[in-house]
């Protein structure tokens, strides 16, 4: 594809990405929302994180993956424990990565 066409496509991508990021925070932050909406929005962070996390741990190639070879899933438990005990973002990330790296080294996957 021509670089100029790619350039214009990227401009379009930037526009359709920025507008949904901007509109709610720009227009909703200045007004008081109905209590029901505020209640609903309080559940969005947990919901959206879980919606992104679960498939990344549990789905491999369109199948539920509970096999012992699914390192991502098994490393999640100790990572969860560390996060729960320490509340440290960085510590949890390091423990998770070290476990996955070690498992890949030992089992050679």
């Amino acid at each position, binding site marked *: 594809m021509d*670089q100029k066409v790619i350039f214009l496509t990227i401009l379009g991508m930037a526009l359709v990405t920025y507008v949904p*990021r*901007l509109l709610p925070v720009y227009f*909703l932050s200045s007004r008081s929302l109905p209590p029901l909406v505020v209640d609903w929005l309080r559940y969005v962070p*947990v919901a*959206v994180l879980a919606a992104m996390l679960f*498939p990344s741990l549990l*789905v491999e190639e369109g199948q539920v993956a509970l096999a012992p070879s699914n390192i991502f899933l098994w490393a999640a438990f100790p990572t969860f424990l560390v996060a729960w005990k320490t509340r440290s973002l960085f510590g949890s990330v390091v423990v998770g*990565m070290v476990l996955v790296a070690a498992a*890949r080294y030992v089992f050679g996957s």
Partner: protein
Amino acid sequence: MGANQALPIVLGYVPIGIAYGILAQKAGISPANTLLMSVIVFAGSSQLIAVGLFAAGVPPLSIILTTFVVNLRHMLMSAAVAPYLKCWRKVELAAFAYELTDESFAVHSARFVSYGPNRAEVFTTNIIAQAAWVLGTWLGIMVGGLIRDPKPLALDYALPAMFIALLVILFKDRVQIAVALLTGILAMGLLLAGVNQWNVILATIVGATLGVGIEKWIKKSSS
């Protein structure tokens, strides 16, 4: 301050940025356009998807439409942080929205609940995060084919591990935990049923609604 919050994001962004930079070169996107996308789109998963579509010769309008759908979830995140940002100026909101990603949203919403929004901290985190993304992209363009298999480093586990920790930090009561479990399972179910790009948005809308429902139900039955 701010830099601390950014550290786990940097750990995740640099390697993914490298992967994006390498793949974009292979897809025939010029270095300037590759960097431009990281600067003005700044949305990791959609950039990786777009590179695949460019490589496959998909028409520009389809690429833009796919990007829109993949990134629409940010609209919910933007709405969710809005109540915390009442005293911010419009220009600050515009700058904040520009760098609103899954990861910065997750970090900020965990902080806002406990400490409220601190402008300096928020913008430091966001700027470091995007700098890491652009740096990773640049490294990917530079080292390209030289990088051997990065899998042994487990860099691909940085983001899942971060999401786990952020969820734990956000768990303030049992309803939040129930919402996480229900939404996560629903997102998986939708994905397995073939709902590829809408699954996160749909599951989030249903999950948050269930949360409000459970909350009302508990209040009703305890009063």
